[in-house]
């Protein structure tokens, strides 16, 4: 049966190709949208569990917003003086578990780092007060960073090969990668971390502080991250802190995540509508192609029954043929869909902020399997009933098609 099915596919090449292409488009779109959707959702979930901060404080005159600061890995340099951040009242202080400042700067595209044209975000952290990297550092047994050591986000390992032990040049200074962070689904994944003082020195070497309205970078920071004690009313804290300071924006990370989630939900709806439209169009084409494949061979079925082929064998023959066509089309579409995930995400990230979760060969394989599963499901939905009907057709009816 498999041999007949294969021959049918190979020797009816044009029909087979049409069906394969149609199935590939349907499954490809599905796999692509499914992957992008789940990647952004898992990014949000990861950020919830791994970001660790409850409140973000950043300069009011910054051109970037909180979403971009937290999730995009944007390389824009923006600073405020440590003194701009208002001293906390005793009430607010009592609710804070930790405060950590960060200093952002960027590599220069094409010359800064790692033979990539991309401009990368460098973040200086104060490891004494830091609670963002703390858990990971403890897990890895890293107590401190020397001035020549950096920690990198997981995307940088995957995209430009910054793995542990690798030496790289950042803004004309040599650094060794001390470790690679776990995926967080935030801008951290595309960030290089080093000591705050080293970051300030690097900035001073490459970017005159005057262009940012500063005399020096000695007391400059880009943002503060605050971790609040369990049970603290975050919204009330944010309101209280914001009221006490005019030079900064104070936002609840949870609120940023919520906004992002709402934005992603809307975006997902658009993707879903797009997929449904594609599914309907390709589905109609597939139905008509599969039906013509089946009903166009009515006489052949009658002939096969006349030479002694059983109903179940005819059923199996069609199942093999349609299953193979669906598998080829489904797998081709799913692989194409998976390969297009990163290009599509890059395009979309230029339009909106999209956090991204873990994307590995294993996950890509799962998505391909999912796409293949969809192709088989579609083929089963479309063809089972007509194939069953036809296999059960009396040989005379199949042969004569009512001609007698």
């Amino acid at each position, binding site marked *: 049966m498999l041999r*007949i099915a294969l*021959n*049918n596919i*190979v*020797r*009816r090449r044009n029909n087979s190709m049409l069906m394969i292409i149609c199935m590939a488009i349907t499954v490809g779109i599905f796999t692509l949208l499914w992957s992008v959707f789940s990647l952004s959702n898992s990014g949000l979930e990861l950020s919830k569990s791994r970001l660790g901060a409850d409140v973000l404080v950043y300069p009011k005159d910054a051109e970037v917003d909180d979403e971009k600061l937290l999730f995009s890995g944007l390389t824009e340099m923006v600073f405020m003086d440590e003194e701009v951040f208002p001293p906390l009242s005793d009430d607010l202080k009592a609710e804070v578990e930790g405060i950590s400042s960060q200093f952002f700067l960027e590599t220069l595209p094409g010359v800064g780092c790692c033979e990539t044209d991309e401009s990368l975000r460098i973040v200086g952290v104060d490891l004494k007060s830091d609670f963002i990297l703390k858990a990971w550092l403890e897990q890895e047994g890293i107590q401190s960073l020397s001035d020549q050591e950096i920690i990198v986000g997981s995307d940088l390992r995957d995209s430009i090969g910054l793995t542990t032990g690798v030496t790289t040049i950042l803004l004309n200074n040599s650094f060794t990668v001390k470790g690679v962070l776990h995926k967080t689904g935030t801008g951290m994944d595309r960030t290089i971390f080093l000591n705050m003082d080293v970051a300030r020195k690097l900035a001073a070497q490459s970017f005159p502080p005057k262009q940012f309205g500063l005399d020096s970078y000695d007391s400059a920071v880009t943002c503060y991250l605050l971790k609040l004690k369990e049970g603290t009313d975050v919204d009330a804290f944010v309101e209280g802190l914001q009221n006490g300071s005019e030079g900064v924006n104070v936002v609840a990370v949870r609120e940023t995540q919520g906004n992002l989630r709402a934005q992603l939900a809307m975006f997902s709806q658009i993707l879903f509508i797009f997929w449904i439209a594609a599914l309907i169009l390709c589905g109609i084409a597939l139905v008509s192609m599969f039906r013509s494949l089946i009903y166009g*061979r009515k*006489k*052949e079925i*009658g*002939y*096969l*029954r*006349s*030479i*002694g*082929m*059983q*109903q179940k064998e005819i059923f199996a023959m069609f199942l093999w043929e349609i299953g193979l066509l669906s598998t080829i089309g489904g797998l081709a579409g799913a692989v194409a869909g998976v390969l297009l995930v990163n290009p599509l995400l890059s395009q979309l990230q230029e339009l909106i902020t999209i956090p991204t979760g873990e994307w590995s060969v294993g996950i890509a394989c799962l998505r391909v399997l999912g796409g293949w599963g969809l192709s088989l499901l579609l083929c089963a939905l479309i063809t089972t009933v007509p194939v069953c009907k036809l296999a059960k057709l*009396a*040989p*005379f009816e199949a*042969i*004569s098609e*009512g001609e*007698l």
Partner: protein
Amino acid sequence: MELLKLLKVTKTFETGEKCTAVNEVSLSVSEHDFISIMGVSGSGKSTLLMLMGGLLKPTSGDISYLGKSLFSMSDTELTNWRGKTVGYLFQNVQLVQALTLRENMELARRYGNNLEANVDEILKLLDLTKLQSRLPSQLSGGQKRRGMFAVTLVRDPKIILADEPTNDLDDKSSQQIIDILQSAAQKGKAVVLVTHNARWAAQAGKQYRMENGSLNLVTSI
């Protein structure tokens, strides 16, 4: 030995108005029989052949093979019976379009009586050796018909039901087919030939004429 027996077989189609294609036909088909059935178009010849091949169920009457009613068999049994017992040469050539002639023969052989049947010998007999790798769509009308005949012979059936097997063939090829049918009957097979060509019909041992669904014996040698 009597192989197939038709007893008052009637087949009525009800598509809009009632049409009796075969009317109370009784016929006995034995080993070595070479039977021809002549008749004008629409006289019910092909329907009778379909009934004899177990491809169509009669409205009334019975058809039995070696004493067992065909239509008391399950679908699986009847299909097996068809594969091993009946070689059906359809009026319109029927082959699997995606298989070459040789592959069609090999497929048919799996369901026939003789799994060891020599494909090459049959191809040679029908002068098809050079065409064995062609798909049905690459064969001419006459070649297809001979191909269909090869597919029937490879199954080594006990009964050959041939519905206008000489259509699309020149006289020489037609005579070759008739000779092969005659030879099959001499070797113990039962052959039923439906034709509207009196010349081919005359070469059969028993000649019947079909008129308005009724079968009448014309000559028996």
